[in-house]
């Protein structure tokens, strides 16, 4: 995650700063992607349309966000709503029962927590960031990680363990993202 304060980043996006927008998309793309693919399980061709729709609307509606620090949760709720709208259009009707809605909310909370972990990961050293991202997020096998990072495959497990310990330490004291102040 960028070190730019969220509200400064959002302000720059509101002014049409393309670099700021690139950063905002890069920072939140995994979160939006995970909601679309893991929570709502849209097929890839439909998922991309929703993904683009989410970011287009985020850009158009940044003025409506009352609390910039609630950006993550706001994006999450927007993604959730667009996924549901998409499923309703595709299936004609979608019964979103209390049980289903509760399960979706639980998964969104997990993803918000995952985003906090991701932010902590971004604060680690480059080698730690790289090895944890490759192994856990990109699911690369030891042999690929070893070849691409130029390290012996036999040392990867211990490096991962050390980096996880650093990640855990850096997470102490962090709080999950705020709830959105503006929802539609």
């Amino acid at each position: 995650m960028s070190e730019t304060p969220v509200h400064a980043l959002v302000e720059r996006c509101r002014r049409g700063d393309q670099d700021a927008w690139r950063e905002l998309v890069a920072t939140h793309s995994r979160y939006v992607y995970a909601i679309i693919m893991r929570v709502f399980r849209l097929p890839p061709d439909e998922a991309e349309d929703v993904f683009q729709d989410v970011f287009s609307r985020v850009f158009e509606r940044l003025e409506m966000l009352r609390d910039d620090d609630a950006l993550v949760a706001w994006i999450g709720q927007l993604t959730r709503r667009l996924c549901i709208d998409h499923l309703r259009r595709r299936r004609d009707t979608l019964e979103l029962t209390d049980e289903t809605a509760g399960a979706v909310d639980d998964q969104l909370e997990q993803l918000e927590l995952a985003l906090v972990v991701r932010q902590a990961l971004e604060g680690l050293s480059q080698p730690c960031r790289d090895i944890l991202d490759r192994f856990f997020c990109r699911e690369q096998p030891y042999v690929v990680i070893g070849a691409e990072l130029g390290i012996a495959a036999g040392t990867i497990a211990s490096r991962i363990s050390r980096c996880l310990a650093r990640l855990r330490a850096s997470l102490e004291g962090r709080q999950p993202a705020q709830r959105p102040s503006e929802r539609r």
Partner: protein
Amino acid sequence: MDDRNLEHLLRLLPPAPESWVRTAQELPFVRDEIDSILERAGSSPTFRDALRKDASGALRQEGYELADDVVAHILRRLPPADA
């Protein structure tokens, strides 16, 4: 938070496809061009066919300089062939 939980949370956020991210980064800044291209494609079968045959070439000829990912985005939104 134990290692197992931490590993689980790390696995929840794989990267989005790079082309999706690049397109999302570009779209708001070329929205007017895209709307104009799609509007014209909707009303002109000749332009629509030219886009289907060679989108980048057809757009360049019209003076548009758009990234490949954005061109792919436009192609996905073209009206059906018999429209």
